[in-house]
């Protein structure tokens, strides 16, 4: 805190130019690494070996991308898995959390305090990884299924609480008048409450989509069948086996059998770029709703 006050002390004398320079440099720091990866993915393989990595390709080549698109089905397959899981997962997650959040926002419920506490407690304490692993593999038999990739991230306690706080702000009068018109609670929720709640739905929906898209951990825990690898986990497998493979012919053979031909450096980086492609494309939308959602939460208090 002391340091902060020092920085506050300088604020008065800091000209706008310096402030803008700070942000320009920091923004570049955030973007350039991605440019570097993009550049590697568009560089000729032999040039990478001899010249190293650069921000601008020394010898341009789209071999990496050709390799992926023409080549192994594994990468396309991983794409398919990621897309299906993200779409189904984000939708189901939104449905379950918004229903629960809405019900908990209704003051006429007697047990809403207790149920909220049951939700909150899981943020403080959990059984840990090993019991969770045993539960999923031995008792639910969800190892090597698409379902576990969806279920693992489906319920987020924090999101339910955010939703609940948002729904509290929905004027009770419209819900009341719908009730008088003889609309059932479910119908009221889907027809009247949800349409006026798009900001929170968009924010939470985007959050959980990004969560699903970037999830590799569930895959690392429960998936052994390479047909069910998602993009992130495939990336991890490509990367973590790299050094080991280069020194070990037998191991590289076995991985080749598992995921087809071993991609070179540029193809690996191309896979990485393709995995963040959709995020970059949706980014304008993503960050607009994101900033909105955050501001919403902050001003609400």
């Amino acid at each position: 805190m002391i340091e902060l006050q020092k920085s506050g002390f300088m604020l008065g004398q800091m000209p706008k130019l310096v402030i803008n320079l700070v942000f320009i440099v920091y923004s570049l720091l955030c973007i350039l690494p991605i440019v570097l990866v993009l550049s590697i993915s568009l560089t000729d393989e032999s040039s990478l070996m001899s010249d190293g990595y650069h921000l601008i390709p020394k010898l341009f080549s789209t071999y990496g991308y050709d390799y992926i698109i023409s080549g192994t089905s594994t990468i396309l397959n991983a794409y398919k898995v990621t897309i299906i899981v993200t779409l189904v997962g984000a939708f189901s997650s939104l449905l379950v959390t918004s229903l629960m959040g809405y019900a908990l926002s209704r003051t006429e419920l007697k047990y809403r305090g207790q149920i909220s506490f049951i939700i909150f407690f899981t943020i403080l304490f959990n059984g840990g990884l090993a019991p969770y692993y045993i539960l999923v593999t031995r008792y639910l038999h969800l190892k090597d299924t698409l379902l576990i990739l969806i279920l693992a991230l489906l319920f987020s306690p924090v999101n339910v609480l955010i939703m609940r706080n948002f729904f509290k702000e929905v004027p009770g009068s419209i819900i009341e008048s719908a009730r008088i018109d003889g609309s059932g609670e479910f119908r009221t929720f889907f027809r009247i409450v949800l349409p006026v709640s798009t900001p929170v739905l968009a924010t939470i929906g985007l959050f959980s989509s990004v969560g699903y898209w970037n999830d590799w951990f569930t895959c690392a825990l429960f998936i052994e069948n390479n047909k069910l690898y998602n993009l992130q986990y495939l990336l991890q497998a490509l990367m973590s086996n790299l050094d080991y493979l280069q020194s070990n012919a037998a191991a590289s053979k076995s991985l080749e059998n598992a995921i087809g031909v071993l991609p070179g450096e540029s193809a690996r980086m191309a896979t990485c770029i393709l995995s963040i492609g959709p995020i970059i494309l949706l980014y304008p939308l993503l960050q607009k709703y994101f900033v909105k959602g955050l501001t919403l939460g902050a001003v609400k208090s």
Partner: protein
Amino acid sequence: MSSQSQAVAATVKGERKKTRALSPVTFLREITKHWAFYAMILPGLLFLIIFNYLPMFGVVIAFKDYNPVAGIWESKWIGLKNFEFFFKSDAMWRVTLNTISYNLLIMFLVTSISILFAILLQETGGRYRSSIYKSLMLLPFFLSWIVGDYIVYALLNPDQGLLNQIRELFGYEAIDWYGEPSYWRIIMPLAYLLKNVGYTSVIYVAAITGISSDYYEAAEIDGASKLQKARFITIPLLIPVVIILSLLSLGKIFNGGLGDWSAFYTLPRESGILFSSTDVIDTYVFRALKGVSDIGMSSAVGFYQAIVGLVMVLATNYLVKKYDSESSLF
């Protein structure tokens, strides 16, 4: 995030009305009267019970010789045997100290830099400019740590990596970044900063936007400078947000598999050489589970982690409550 923190704080405070004893009659009457709402709650509640509460009973595995064939309840009790190996090894101190020191350092740096950035973002001399900076700074937050690993590799790869290319350009020796643990004490916090500062800054900007302009107008009339406004209005009013965010992230530190620990697993690429500076409790638990398949030890360490985490959150919350009961979590 601020909406998160308020959501959580509001849950626990001022929500717990005295309810009459849970008699079956009142229970049934309540459920039938509002059956639709309880039906809405049911799917989420089932999830919570299956995926969050059932594993809590699983902590008994920490005290058993787990046998996959027999299952949890049939396995034999072996007391504290599972804990022995971990508590006797050097690993315990290493991972505990790494976990606590990294998290506190990262928390402090992210918080202070984000608040500084949030205040400076108001001073760029153009809303349009500020929003461009904000969007660019947010970008790393949306990338996974696996992508982060690719980026770090592109920078640090000893032969072709950009950093060594630059070093050679200026006539310095190339450095084997992946072979020397001490570098990672700097690399890890930097990676976390780059990923999270943009996001946290946006949260604090939102929180600053929420501060009533009356304060600033009053300060204006008294002739306060920008620095005095930041020091006497903005920062003090942000403290509650800081406290709640910190409490939540403290809780996450020891929250097996829920915290943002995967960077410690992906960036150093499970390289044993780097363990002294990159191994944290979560990576240790994960390796014990997946690598050596030692479920007993993994759950013992996980149990230790959960207890330490709970104690830390409760202790911090107690201290906060003592000094400022308004900002405590519960």
